[in-house]
Every structure is written in structure tokens, then in C-alpha cells.
């Protein structure tokens, strides 16, 4: 028996080395491979940075257009998912009861479990559908990507809002009625501000998810060399898609280095957002544990 314990604990220790090793290797390898390329030239190529930022001057061999495309997709996804998700979370936590509640939460959970490629396929099908019916020359575009990405992160917003609201201590819920506020006023002036950090944490996490997902944008309008998108109905470049195409189709060592640089930029972006969400979440929990 003691022998079994011993072997088991040694195996567990070995397994526990893995997460740290994976992370260290990932960061170390990306840093090493993109060394000498991590500067403004990676972003803007030979275009002066200020021209690219302010005058939208074309950038040829930098990843700035891809960063900008990702930013647009994330912003559009936020516009779709944030209001809808917060309102749905409020309904789930404050109003929905009984069988409707079960059904609603099942649908949201189901959506959260859907593979992201299905959201991309949904967008693609939407375009096929529109072509056959209302808009014969509809094509995949930035707007479509943002919309589908919004639907992908919607359940994260709903769940964050729901769990922040329903995790509030009971005495806070009594505060509103005791001040003579009605239900809607209580939600708006007491519950939502109290749950604010939790909801914000969910928002930041959703944005991180929208920034990293590749399958959705691959089917809904991201292309390799589009430059800056001129309108919402234009094709665009995106950081994750740039990384994917570089892995498959790079021609020169310089392009490969830029790919590693882009991977590092994306990694920093998503882990940064993740850590921010984590801090907000912890702040929220601490506040209500003391209170």
C-alpha cells in the first residue's frame, strides 16, 4: 500500500510539472524565435507609425492591419454581445422562474458549448441564405464576423452577469425595498452597481475570447492580404488568421519571424485580458466576502 502511495505521488508530481513547463516553453520559444523582430517595424513595416495610425496610410509588411482588423471584430462582437448578454443575465437571475428558466439556461449552456466553427458556419450559411433571397451580392465581411463572434461570446456575458448578480449577499437585495425602490429601480441602482466588477470581468474575458478565436473569422471574411478594411462590408485581416496562414504559407525566414512576433503579440493580448478579468473577479469576491 505504501508503495502504491509512493508511486502515485511521484506520478502526480511529474504531471504537475507540465502546465508550468508548457507555458515557459511557449513564451521562451516565441521570444527566442522572434528576437530582433520585436519592434515597431513588426507592426508597421516601412510606413511611419504616425501616418499609419492617424492617416490610415497603407502598411505593406507589418501586422498593423491584422491588429486593426482584430480590434474591429472584437469591438463589433462587444456591441452585439454586451447589451444582449447583460440583459439576458438580468432576466435569468432576477425574473425567470420555473420551467422557462430551466429552458433558458439550457439554451445558453448549449450555446456556450457550441464549437466555434459552427458559429462560423452559421455566418457562412447566413450569407448563402441572403444571396438566395434578399441580397444577391452579399458576401462575407467584417460586419458578419463581428456579428458571429458576438454570438460566440454571448453566453460568456450571460453567465458572468448571472453569476455576479445571483452571488450577491441577501441583505443587499433587501436594501432596495427598504428604501422604497421598486424592483426595476433596485436592479438598476443597487444590484447592477454592486455586481459591476463581476460583469466587467466577464466582459473582459469575452473580449479576450473574441480576440483569439480563429475558426469563426476564417469562415466569415478574414483574408490574408486585405490591408485596412475600408468599410464594415469589406474583407479584412486579423491577427489569429495571419498566424494561421503564416504557419501554412510562409515564404521567407523574415515572414516566419513576423509570424512568431504576431503569435507573441496575440498571446500577450489574450493573457493580459485574462489577467485583468481575473483581478476584477477577485476584487468582486473580496468585496462581498468582507461585506
Amino acid at each position, binding site marked *: 500500500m505504501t508503495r502504491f*502511495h509512493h508511486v*502515485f*505521488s511521484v506520478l*502526480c*508530481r511529474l*504531471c*504537475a510539472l507540465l*502546465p*508550468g513547463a508548457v*507555458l515557459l516553453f*511557449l513564451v521562451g*520559444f516565441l521570444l527566442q524565435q522572434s528576437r530582433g523582430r520585436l519592434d515597431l517595424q513588426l507592426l508597421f513595416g516601412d510606413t511611419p507609425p504616425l501616418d499609419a495610425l492617424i492617416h490610415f496610410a497603407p502598411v505593406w509588411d507589418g501586422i498593423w492591419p491584422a491588429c486593426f482588423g482584430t480590434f474591429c471584430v472584437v469591438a463589433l462582437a462587444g456591441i452585439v454581445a454586451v447589451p*444582449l448578454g447583460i*440583459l*439576458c443575465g438580468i*432576466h*435569468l437571475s432576477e*425574473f425567470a422562474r420555473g420551467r422557462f428558466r430551466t429552458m*433558458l439556461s*439550457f*439554451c*445558453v*449552456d*448549449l*450555446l456556450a*458549448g*457550441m*464549437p466555434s*466553427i*459552427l*458559429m*462560423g*458556419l*452559421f455566418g*457562412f*450559411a*447566413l450569407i*448563402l441564405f441572403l444571396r438566395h433571397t434578399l441580397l444577391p451580392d452579399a458576401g462575407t465581411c467584417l460586419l458578419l464576423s463581428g456579428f458571429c463572434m458576438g454570438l460566440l461570446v*454571448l453566453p460568456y456575458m450571460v453567465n458572468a452577469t448571472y453569476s455576479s448578480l445571483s452571488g450577491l449577499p441577501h441583505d443587499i437585495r433587501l436594501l432596495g425595498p427598504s428604501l422604497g425602490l421598486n424592483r*426595476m*429601480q433596485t436592479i438598476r441602482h443597487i444590484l447592477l452597481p454592486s455586481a459591476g466588477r463581476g460583469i466587467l470581468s466577464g466582459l473582459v474575458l469575452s473580449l479576450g475570447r473574441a480576440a*483569439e*478565436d*480563429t*475558426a469563426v473569422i*476564417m469562415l466569415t471574411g478574414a483574408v490574408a492580404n486585405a490591408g485596412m478594411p475600408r468599410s464594415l462590408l469589406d474583407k479584412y485581416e486579423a491577427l*489569429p488568421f495571419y*498566424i*494561421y496562414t*503564416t*504557419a*501554412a504559407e510562409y515564404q521567407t525566414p523574415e515572414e516566419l519571424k513576423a*509570424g512568431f512576433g504576431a*503569435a507573441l503579440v*496575440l*498571446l500577450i493580448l*489574450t*493573457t493580459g485580458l*485574462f489577467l485583468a478579468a*481575473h483581478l476584477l473577479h477577485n476584487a468582486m469576491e473580496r468585496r462581498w466576502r468582507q461585506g
Partner: protein
Amino acid sequence: MSAGFHVSKDVLARIVIAASAWVSAAVVLFLFLFLAWFCRPLLDMTTLARLLSWDWRPFQGSFGILSMLTGSLLLAFSSMLLAFPVGVGICCFIHGIGPPSLARFVLRAVKLMTSVPTVVYGFVAVFVLVPLLRDVFHRGSGFSLLAAILGLAILVLPTVVLMLHSRFLTVEPQVRLTAAALGMTSSQKLLHLVIPASKRGFLAAAVLGLGRALGDTMIPLMLAGNAPQVPGSVFDSVRAMTAHIALVVATDSHSLAYLSLFACGLLLFLTTTLVNIGLRMLTRNREVGS
């Protein structure tokens, strides 16, 4: 006057809130309806038979998706076979085998792993794992079932660990007194009390991880080589359903090719739904039991 105005505004807010909730719930329904609508031709038996075959050679007019289905299942199950024991090991380390300070560090690392973009895992694996497999085994290009299994195992590892971790967290307080009364060490408590008491947690972690592995696109697409065939060994190339969808959208335009893509989509939708129902049953029974 002003009171009346307030009431109507509240009613409006209630309506808006309820409407958003139903819109959010309807998204999944719409997704299903779209997939089903585009899969209509499958109701025809000859078309269905053409799609449910093993051959994918679009230029010769065969559009079978069975090898993609096999590929997906193989990838998902084998990567879980690898990730699950490792995940259990990590979780046991966090809950009593390892010293608390290290345990906290490992848990943080696992959580941080969830924030790494899939495409970054894929990118690094293409330039590290694939050449490594090629050089070690001297079999083919390295883009193989094995590469994708290893990549997917890393990807689903945090899912398994965090699900188990949350179950252990609820079980541990229930057995804490018993263990203390029996004078058990923390590793004895873990092995003899916590693990046997969280069977459902193990099952839930396995189901969740399987769903995650089945639904991932980028790792199979970037690492598995994407040849539409049933692999004879782990060094052969395979194509997953998710990767198939991504590839067909990018290249083909034949209507049967599109049909195969929506058929894969529908299959993925149904498996995800099954996984979710399974998870729901696992967690609901737990609530009844406790």
C-alpha cells in the same frame, strides 16, 4: 403623473429584458434550423448514401464524410485518453499531494493555460512538435494523427483539471472531519475519501473534455495533415470534421461538397447537444443526492 410615467418605463424595461433573454435563447435554435435547412437534400436516400460513404474524392464525384467522422472521434478519444490521467494527476497534486504553495502556483499555471489562443498552440506545435516527430520516428511528414492528439491533449488539459478541481472543492469540506478523526494524511484523505466521493466529477470532466476536443478546429487543421482517410497508424494523416468544414469553405463550390459541410455541422451540433445533456444530468443528480 410622474408616477404613471415611471411605471410605464419599468414595464418597457421588463419587456426589453425579457425580449433579449429570448433572443439569446433563440440563437441556438436558429443555428439548428439553419443547419437543418441546408441539410434538407439528405432526406433523399441516394444523396444520403452518397454522403455516408468512406470516399472523399470531390473530382471523381464521391463526397463521403465517414472518414472525417472517424477522424474526429479518434482524435477526441485518444487525446482524452492522454489528457485525462495527466489532468487527474495535476488535480491530485493541487489537492494534497503537493505542498500548498506549489499547489497554488500549479493551479495558476493551469488557469493561465486557458488563456493561450488555440492558434498559438497550433503555430508553436507546427514548428516544434511536428519536426520532432518527423526526426524521432522517420515516418512521413510529421503532420499526423499523433501530432494532433498531443496538441489536443495540451488544449483540453485545463478543462479537465478545472472541472475536477471544482468537484474536489465541494467534496473536500464534507470529508474533512472524517479524515481528521481518522488521522489521515492529506494524500490518504485524497486517495481514500475525496476521489471515491467524486465519481460524478470524473465523469463530468471526461465528458466536458471530450466535447472540447471534438469541437476544436485549429489543432486538427494545423497538425493532422488533413488527408481524408481512415488512418492505419498514429503516423498517418487524418481529417477531422471541424477541419473539413474549414477546408471545404475555403476551396470547393460544388453543391454536394457544401452539403457535406452542413452534414458535418449538423453532426457536430448533435454531439455537442448530447454532451450538454449528459453534463446536465451528471450535475443535476448530484444536487439531488446531496
